[in-house]
């Protein structure tokens, strides 16, 4: 059974290779090849899942050693895969949601002449993402980590002729690289500390390392997670990443890749458990991001960017949970999975809306779409209910447990974190209701564009609606399925470990508080966007709104400090290289040249002058000989 693991990766990888190298011949069938291989990977995943279920809880870790990747004295990086409950969860999420989105893309990208390549990139992403979650050591994980970064780069910049897309892609890669640097340093630190970076030995030897070392490793891992999962302070790329095609946003920037940071933290649970200081930082980062993303999500008029803010915020929840330690790991992953369903569904719904609206993304130009796109409306609406935590739906179960866990952290920290999580829940309800109202309710607000063509909103074709329906089903029942009887907890506990915290509040109190927050959020949104018509042109808004529209000034900060500063630095360095480093050498050359120019005048061409110097030289020789004799 172990030997199937490599096939999981091989299938999409083969697809990527075939589609990207195959050339135009495959244009007609390329998208079906891609979808089929993604689905094949999903099927293999299911087979493996069934196998795992058939084993006892402590036998559920499979490893497959392929070959020795980088063998250098003392430094052994192997291409070894590890399939346990955690990675199995991810495999199913990635290949399942991935296959659905492949299917959706067949319709969504129908009119794009470069559809084959799009599917090639999607398959590449699947392969890299699977490598990331299946790796048995941190270096191989790093391979997948950068691989998904590359796929993300290629897909964000898929419409390269749009400068905004190209810039966004570059930005995403660069910000991610900063995070990658963290992961690289973490791997080096592990090697310097443990002499290895394979999961097993590292986790089993955590106890031998000093806490300082562990904290350093954990913080570097956190930096990596921040880059990949768009957490403060490396969150700025996610909003811009919405320049990519919507299926990409759904798959990569909502369901899977951006959650890799959470995976990393949960996977490294042993390290984080040994470094409480780092854990605190993790929770702070999560809490800040969940509020940050939520606030940004409230102010955006671009439907995808509003959802991106939401993604950031939801991942903030997961990071927060992961930072809580054993009490939160399982719930982080559970929220991750349910979020994968409903957020992907929401994005696909947004894509479906854009598809019917001539790629318009400004929600102020939507309105009343529920009549035109019933399926989209219903699926989107279910996703909406799931994300705000409507009782009984996925988000309710998973988010509620995280808020509980935050309170369970105990002490002042617990109160602050729990409060932040509650506040986040309220804001989530607000901005999601806002999105819902602006898009599907109210009067129609779209107008003919410059060319006079008015959008004709229409429902999307079946290949697009089917994935949306499936995801909606997941969004509705996923949480309940996982939570009833603590199925998910039991499944994952052997890997991550679990402990019940001692919450100062009872579970019901927390749930009730969450419900209150939810109602407040929905009501506030209704008051602002439901009762009165939405203006087509955005009002100026308060200071906070304006700041939130600009991603809370993060980009401005980056621009002023990093971009401008960097430009000045490089320009002055280029100048210095030319004048100083080169100048010293050229100056030497010039002075030699000047000296020889002066010496040249001695060569006046008169034989007699030369004869004088010759004669003088002879005299000097005689003098020298005499002197030598005398001495």
């Amino acid at each position, binding site marked *: 059974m172990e030997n199937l693991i490599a096939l999981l990766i091989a299938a999409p990888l083969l697809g990527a290779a075939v589609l990207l190298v195959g050339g135009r011949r495959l244009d007609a069938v390329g998208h079906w090849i891609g979808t089929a291989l993604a689905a094949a990977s999903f099927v293999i995943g299911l087979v493996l899942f069934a196998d795992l279920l058939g084993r006892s809880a402590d036998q559920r870790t499979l490893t497959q050693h392929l070959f020795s990747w980088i063998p250098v004295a003392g430094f052994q990086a192997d291409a070894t895969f590890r399939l346990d409950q955690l990675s199995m969860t991810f495999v199913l999420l990635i290949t399942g949601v991935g296959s659905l989105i492949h299917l959706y893309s067949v319709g969504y990208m129908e009119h794009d002449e470069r559809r084959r390549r799009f599917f090639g990139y999607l398959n590449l992403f699947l392969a890299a993402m699977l490598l990331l979650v299946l790796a048995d050591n941190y270096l191989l994980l790093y391979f997948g980590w950068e691989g998904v970064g590359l796929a993300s780069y290629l897909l964000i910049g898929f419409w390269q002729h749009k400068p905004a897309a190209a810039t966004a892609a570059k930005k995403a890669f660069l910000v991610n690289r900063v995070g990658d640097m963290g992961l690289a340093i973490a791997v080096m630190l592990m090697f310097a500390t443990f002499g290895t970076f394979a999961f097993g030995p590292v986790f089993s030897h955590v106890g031998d390392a000093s806490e300082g070392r562990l904290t350093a490793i954990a913080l570097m891992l956190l930096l990596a997670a921040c880059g990949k999962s768009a957490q403060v302070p490396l969150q700025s790329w996610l909003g811009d990443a919405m320049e990519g095609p919507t299926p990409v946003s759904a798959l990569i920037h909502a369901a899977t890749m951006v959650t890799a940071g959470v995976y990393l933290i949960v996977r490294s649970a042993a390290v984080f458990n040994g470094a409480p200081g780092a854990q605190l930082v993790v929770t702070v980062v999560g809490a800040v991001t969940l509020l940050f993303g939520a606030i940004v999500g409230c102010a955006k008029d671009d439907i995808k960017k509003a959802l991106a803010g939401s993604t950031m915020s939801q991942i903030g929840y997961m990071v927060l949970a992961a930072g809580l330690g054993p009490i939160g790991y399982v719930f982080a992953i559970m929220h991750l999975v349910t979020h994968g369903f409903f957020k992907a569904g929401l994005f696909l719904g947004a894509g479906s809306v854009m598809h019917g609206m001539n790629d318009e993304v400004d929600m102020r130009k939507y309105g009343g779409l529920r009549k035109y796109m019933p399926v989209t409306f219903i699926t989107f609406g279910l996703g909406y209910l799931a994300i705000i935590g409507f009782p009984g739906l996925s988000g309710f179960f998973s988010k509620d447990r995280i808020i509980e866990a935050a309170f369970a952290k105990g002490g002042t920290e617990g109160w602050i974190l729990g409060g932040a999580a509650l506040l986040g829940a309220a804001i989530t309800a607000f901005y999601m209701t806002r999105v819902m109202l602006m898009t599907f309710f109210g009067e129609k607000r779209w107008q003919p564009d410059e060319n006079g063509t008015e959008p004709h909103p229409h429902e999307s074709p079946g290949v697009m609606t089917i994935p949306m329906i499936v995801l909606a089903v997941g969004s509705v029942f996923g949480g309940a399925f996982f939570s009833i009887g603590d199925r998910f907890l039991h499944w994952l506990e052997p890997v991550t470990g679990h402990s019940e915290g001692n919450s100062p509040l009872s579970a019901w109190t927390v749930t009730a508080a969450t419900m209150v927050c939810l109602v407040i959020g929905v009501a506030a949104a209704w008051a602002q966007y439901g009762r009165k018509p939405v203006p087509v042109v955005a009002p100026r808004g308060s200071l906070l709104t304006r700041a939130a529209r600009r991603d809370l000034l993060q980009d401005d900060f980056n621009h002023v400090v990093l971009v401008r500063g960097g430009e000045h630095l490089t320009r002055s360095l280029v100048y210095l290289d030319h004048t100083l480093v080169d100048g010293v050498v050229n100056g030497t050359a010039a002075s030699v040249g000047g000296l020889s120019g002066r010496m040249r005048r001695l060569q006046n061409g008169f034989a007699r*002058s030369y004869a*004088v110097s010759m004669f*003088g030289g002879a*005299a000097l020789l*005689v003098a020298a000989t*005499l002197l030598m004799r005398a001495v």
Partner: protein
Amino acid sequence: MSAQLAAYSTSTGEAFQFWVLGTVAVIGALCTVFMKRAVHSALCLAATMIVLAVFYLANGAYFLGIVQIVVYTGAIMMLFLFVVMLVGVTAADSLKETIKGQRWLALLCGLGFGVLLFAGIAHASLKDFNGIGRANANGNVEGLASLIFTRYVFAFELTGALLITAAVGAMVLTHRQRTERARTQRELSEQRVREGTHVPPLPAPGVYARHNAVDVAGLLPDGTPSELTVSKTLRERGQVRDVSAEALNDLKALEQRAEERLERTEIEPTAFKRPEEASK
């Protein structure tokens, strides 16, 4: 002076000869350097060489002494004179220096070098010496010959090759090959017409009662000599004889004689100064 004596020691006679002839040699050398005309330099050099020949003889180098006179002074110096005749006389060789500081540098170097050489010789311990007598026992020429044809035979052969090469080289260097056909008189005259200079032949030299030679310039109507009338080579050498003053003097004398004959007045004739004495 006896050769035997010279071989072992220096006699008073030799000393006397050295000081007298040495002075001559130095004066000759100095004249070689400082004479304005190349011909004079050549003659002075010849004198120095002859003195040196005598010194060779005095030093027991009889063969070299003779060779010095016959080959050096006789042949090489004559070669110099030929070339001087060919080229040197035209150059008005002034001793005025044109390169800045050259003369001073040269004198400084010369002086310094001389001082150093003298110091070197004085420094060397050359108090006693072996006479040449033993080496010359079988006769100087025989001694040289036995060395030249044994130990130095290769060098000797090489110098032979060198001499031949030099002779050929000299011929190659001085041989002038016409690269273009000489222009005919007709072409030359056509060229003159085209350029508009001296269409007629150049005027003839002056013809006077007492001077009838190519180096005498003809007089223009105002009594000044015309340069055009003498050949270019003579002009370059500065050997044009200006007889205008002489002619005027003669005219004056003639007038005076006529006056005397006519008994008009008694005036002393004023002599014109002749610019240059013609070579006799």
